């Protein structure tokens, strides 16, 4: 597209879209954000397509599963028709996308309820566990990572690295079993690994969906204590495994930064060591750690599925596990979209944080 000045009215009134774009482009940060947003949307579209077709090629026929083992051909066909499985795949996809546009993820074929409602019910359980585990992960890996970097090459570093390598090798479900065996079976410190509250204790009134927070909001100390009692062991188990790669990343990032020229300059002009570590090094090390936190998210979510299974925790991990078992396509798709969306949103937030911390991104 070329604009030739002084040749007509067109040039004096460029299209609204162009003006809009020009305005955005003149603010680098805004421009950057819009580009990131566009890319995120594109990725999401790709994920919808992949999620749909991947699950559609399932060799097992959901109608057969639903009809039960004793059903005859006729009954199966009836279910296929009812579930829309007899139509061409493209039509099914179009249907799915239209529903998606209306915020409708389809119906779960086992419970006959909308998938989005079921996910909404179960998400807080997963989020509560995940966030608790993440906080614990930071509490473990931040000091360990910094210590290992500052004392690199010493016995402290060696021990921390061994811990990290071992932590990366521990099968989460096995660790969970050991924890349950010790803390519940042997020592009776933890409650039985059965969901989020002891049977007989009512769920607190739903505000956030986090039982610990909701019970506090309701002023119900007993429920809070019970919720916390159920939460700590799975959260710590998960945190142990996730903090292994996190510690490694923090250590590597810190080591990298401590080796930089500007740290040497800061020392050469007499900046105290503590200030160098906590101000100069940590802030700079935060950047690479931030960019890899998608991986940590991956560990958390994948770990959650397993921990939920072992501790019978009624979150979305359990949900998808059950759905996969019976070819509950809409439920699986809903789960995939949910995870992908959260991941993409997370990445957007990371990018935003990134551009706030690092002036080289902000201003280029």
């Amino acid at each position, binding site marked *: 597209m070329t604009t030739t000045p002084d040749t007509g009215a067109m040039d004096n009134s460029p299209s609204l879209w162009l003006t809009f774009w020009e305005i955005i482009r003149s603010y680098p940060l805004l421009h950057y954000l819009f580009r990131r947003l566009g890319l995120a949307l594109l990725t999401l579209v790709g994920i919808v397509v992949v999620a749909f077709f991947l699950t559609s090629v399932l060799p097992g026929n959901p109608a057969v599963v639903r009809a039960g083992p004793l059903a005859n051909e006729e009954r199966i066909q009836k279910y296929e028709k009812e579930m829309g499985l007899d139509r061409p795949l493209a039509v099914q996809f179009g249907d799915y996308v239209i529903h998606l546009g209306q915020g409708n993820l389809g119906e779960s074929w086992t419970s006959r309820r909308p998938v989005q409602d079921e996910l909404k019910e179960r998400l807080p359980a997963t989020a509560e566990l995940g966030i608790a585990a993440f906080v614990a992960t930071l509490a473990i890996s931040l000091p360990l990572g910094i210590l290992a970097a500052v004392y690199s090459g010493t016995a402290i570093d060696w021990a921390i690295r061994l811990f990290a390598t071992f932590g990366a090798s521990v099968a989460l479900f096995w660790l969970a079993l050991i924890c349950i065996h010790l803390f519940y079976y042997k020592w009776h410190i933890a409650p039985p690994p059965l969901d989020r509250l002891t049977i007989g204790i009512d769920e607190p009134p739903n505000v956030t969906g986090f039982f610990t927070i909701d019970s506090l909001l309701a002023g119900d100390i007993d429920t809070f204590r019970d919720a916390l009692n159920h939460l700590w062991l799975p959260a710590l188990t998960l945190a142990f495994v996730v903090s292994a790669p996190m510690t490694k990343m923090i250590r590597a990032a810190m080591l990298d930064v401590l080796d930089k*020229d500007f740290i040497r300059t800061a020392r050469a002009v007499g*900046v105290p060591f503590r200030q160098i570590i906590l101000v100069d090094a940590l802030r700079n090390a935060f950047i690479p750690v931030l960019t890899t936190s998608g991986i940590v998210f991956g560990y958390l979510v994948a770990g959650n599925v397993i921990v939920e299974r072992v501790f019978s925790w009624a979150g979305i991990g359990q949900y998808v596990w059950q759905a996969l078992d019976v070819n509950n396509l809409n439920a699986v798709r809903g789960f995939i979209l949910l995870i992908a969306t959260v991941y993409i949103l997370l990445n957007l937030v990371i990018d935003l944080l990134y551009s706030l911390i690092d002036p080289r991104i902000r201003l280029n």
Partner: protein
Amino acid sequence: MTEPLLAIENLYVTLIDDRGKSKTILQGVSFEIYPNEVMGLVGESGSGKSMTALALMGLLPHRAQIHSGRIWFGGQNLLALPKREFSALRGSQIAMIFQNPRAALNPLMRVGNQVARVVRLHQGLGKRAAYGKGLDLLQQAGITDTSIRARAYPHQLSGGMAQRVLIAMMLACQPRLLIADEPTTGLDVTIQAQIFELIKAIQVELGTTLLLITHDLGVVSEVCQRVAVMQAGKIQEVAAVADLFAHPQHPYTQHLMSTLLRVDRPANYRE
């Protein structure tokens, strides 16, 4: 004769390389620096001149260890000082600028704040006063529009500009001994000339003692009064600059002199 400001005696430093082998990289380095002089330390890459400087600063990398030797500064042996007291000398008594000035600044901090931080450390001013003082120092270091430039981040500055910021930091330190390790390597020739003029001017004005590390005998001849020639971890010759060029004593120095290329004379082979 005046007392030397700094005297290095028989300094041995070993370095453990990646393969775990140790290698002696400084083999009995000894020389003195007298107050108010500009001393050159010249040598080729790997000769140990940067390691000598880092040893003076107590900033040797982890893998390097001082084996033996003494560094006398202000009547104290720096190597015998407790760690804490040695760090207290850094910046206030001895300070150092490095090559690759853009990498020598914290990329996440505005340069004005970096200078102000050093001012606060060494001159005990309040935040605002330190920032104002920092702007003055930046101006002294030859930066124009200081209030705007002080808000810049290092990546927005050219190498020459970044080196001026570092020089402003040195002005804030007002050290008795300033070490400059190849301060213009990587900068353009015309900018190099500007920076050297600035360093010379500041040295004369403040009466700071300067140890200039370089591989360029041209720089030595134009900036320094005395010079130590280093090769393979040893000091081979120490002399006044005029003497060194007129009558190089050590074979290595003589060899260096024979390889000099001069821009003001026709090439050797055509003579």
